[in-house]
């Protein structure tokens, strides 16, 4: 039995760690925070390493490494707070486009994404924490063979930087449920698309509001079939959730490391604060939560890469990573004291990321409720 990274994954972890720590060190990060921008140079470097198309299956034009194949990379990216849309473009958009099946257009776009020639982002839910189709009101009106998109997506990561927007729209105005939704791959330069920068709490990332003002979408831009978004999302969201777990775990790793280090160095009352039992037990609790979250995430990787993920394990993993990252950043501030409250200290960058992640594709409360419901329905 093996419940650990494979040898390839360990190699990737090493490469990714070297790369992320080398390229996204403190200075680079602070430069980004003071003036956020999309760093094309880094993006191409990552593409050249083969990291951007790795998750997509071979039959869908990728390397077929699955979520496990990029998990270590995302973890290192989460650790270094890499300010690039690895998750949006390299994971979610790529997986959705991969679901196109044999459509040529999808394959061409995927190629461009994998090579770093283009970037994509996803504009799915309009209240991004509630993974429910009822909160999608952007409409796709039929116009002959084509569609016209109208509405807005309030918060889109790298929405002003992407070349492709993967947009979830209501193509059947008569529905409020799953059946009436369609996914479109829309070039960002289509007339009527307008992205406005948005100042968000996570200052190590970029965001925009994206408005769609009578945006034409050709029949070929439909991902999968019209009205079939639900099925696609059901296949892709679990993988996207597990990928988020990787980024969260990376953040947890780093904050725990910072806390352990600080509590060994910081002296109060003539002793390193790490020698006080209250601090010891808090750090032990952090370690407990991260260890459990990591274990669940590993198990969830197997589930999704084996084609599963509809069950409860992925939800449990996402929820426990949410909670671990929240706990560890809340308590991390407490352990560091005043210094963690300064803009110059890095703690707040993690603190703010944790807030974003736990509100993306499922809050813990919601996920735990769904798990409970499944258990009560005998579905586990």
């Amino acid at each position, binding site marked *: 039995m093996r419940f650990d990274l494979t040898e390839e994954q360990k190699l990737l972890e090493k490469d990714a760690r070297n790369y992320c720590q080398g390229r996204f060190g403190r200075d680079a990060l602070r430069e980004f925070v003071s003036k956020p921008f999309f760093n094309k140079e880094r993006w191409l470097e990552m593409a050249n390493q083969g990291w951007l198309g790795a998750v997509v299956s071979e039959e869908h034009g990728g390397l077929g490494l699955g979520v496990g194949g990029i998990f270590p990379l995302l973890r290192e990216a989460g650790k270094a707070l890499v300010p690039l849309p690895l998750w949006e473009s390299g994971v979610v958009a790529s997986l959705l486009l991969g679901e196109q099946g044999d459509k040529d257009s999808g394959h061409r776009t995927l190629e461009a994404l994998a090579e770093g020639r283009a970037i994509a982002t996803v504009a799915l839910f309009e209240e991004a924490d509630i993974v429910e189709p009822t909160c999608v009101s952007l409409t796709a009106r039929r116009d002959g063979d084509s569609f016209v998109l109208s509405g807005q997506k309030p918060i889109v990561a790298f929405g002003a930087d992407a070349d492709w927007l993967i947009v979830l729209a209501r193509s059947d105005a008569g529905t409020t449920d799953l059946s009436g939704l369609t996914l479109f791959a829309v070039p960002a330069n289509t007339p009527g698309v307008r992205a406005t920068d948005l100042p968000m709490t996570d200052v190590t990332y970029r965001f925009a509001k994206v408005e769609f003002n009578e945006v034409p979408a050709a029949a070929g831009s439909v991902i999968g079939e019209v009205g079939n978004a639900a099925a696609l999302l059901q296949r892709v969201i679990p993988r996207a959730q597990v990928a988020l777990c990787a980024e969260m775990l990376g953040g947890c790793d780093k904050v725990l490391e910072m806390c352990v280090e600080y509590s060994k160095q910081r002296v109060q009352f003539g002793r390193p604060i790490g020698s006080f039992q209250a601090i010891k037990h808090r750090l032990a609790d952090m370690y407990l939560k991260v260890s459990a979250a990591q274990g669940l995430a590993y198990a969830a990787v197997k589930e999704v890469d084996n084609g599963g993920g509809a069950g409860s394990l992925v939800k449990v993993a996402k929820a426990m990573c949410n909670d671990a990252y929240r706990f560890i950043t809340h308590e991390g501030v407490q352990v560091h004291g005043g210094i963690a409250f*300064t803009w110059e200290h890095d703690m707040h960058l993690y603190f703010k990321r944790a807030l974003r992640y736990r*509100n993306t594709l499922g809050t813990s409360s919601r996920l735990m409720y769904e798990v409970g419901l499944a258990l009560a329905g005998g579905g586990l």
Partner: protein
Amino acid sequence: MGPYFTEEEEQFRAKARAWLESSLADGRFKIALDEPDERNETEWAAAQREWDRRLFQGGYAGLAWPKEYGGRGATVIEQFIFAEEAARAGAPGGLNNMGRSLIGPAIVRHGTDEQKKRLLPKLLSGEEVWAQGFSEPNAGSDLASLTTRAELVGDEWVINGQKIWTSHGHHADWMLLLARTEKTDPPYKGISAFLVDMRSPGITVRPIRQLNGKTGFCEEFFDNVRIPKANLLGTINSGWNAAMTALGYERSVLNVGRHLVMIQFLGRLAKKAGNRIKAGEQGTLFLERLGRAYAAAWSLGCLQYTYASRWAQGAPPGPESSLMRVTWALALQECTELAVDVLGPRAQISCGPEAIDDGDWLLQYYSSRGRGISSGTLEIQRNVIAERILGLPRR
């Protein structure tokens, strides 16, 4: 049981409420409720100073002070009532809040006649703003280990060192500063308190940019700063007492009414949340948390009633301030975390037209995390409760 107020107390409350209402009616103090940042710092400080003046004009500046120093000699309960009404009415603290509530009483208690005559009137009127210079980078929870030194050279004290986490230090005219005058064991026995004119040469004040982008705190560097010999407060090496007097006030009276602020916060949240809190299973889950947050807020309120009642019956304020401090910090964290959860991703927009209330919910969430650290961490407060209230052995 209670809380049962006497008729006189209710009359006092009615007067205070009327005064607060009319004083706040023009709405110009709204900005003073925020934390200032680089954009609105000047405007913010002006509003705060104006509130200092109004309090003085209304006779509420020295509510707790003895009459001989321009105060009102109000009872504990009257102070309590005023604080409660001020919270209810949404009054700001004033720029000189620390001066009035903490430092003034320390000067009243430990100062010479000369010091009182020179300093108290202008403190009370808001003409001179005071800051509290206690914390240092390596003396936070362990205040006694501070290393800023004061040496008597001729008839002047020469001060060298650094202070940090001074609320609004860059607006202060004066500082109550703790410095080491002797190396002792235990260290707190070698600390003295000084009254420092902030315009003295050698002082550099630098605002700290906080994680929320706000500038409410400063750090100060003291480089051979000379102050008159007479500006020692109390006797040499007795600074710890003055500090404890000030902190005692900080940890008790300053808490009053904070439960009302939280309850107002929850009321606004419930309105703002709309269907997110009312509809479906998610709504149900949020409602339970809303109830729990409300309970946490009222816990603080009832603790305040409990101890105000005891103080009014003559018990001196003691370690129970730690109870309120912990209860407040935890309740506030519960309320604000609920808010960002309930309001969802849009609450993460920092500012601007797309943000909910210009990002204020987010700011409150940030700030709440600092409440477990400032004025003694939660760990220190729990130690105090265990050792000084429950009598557990120190070692």
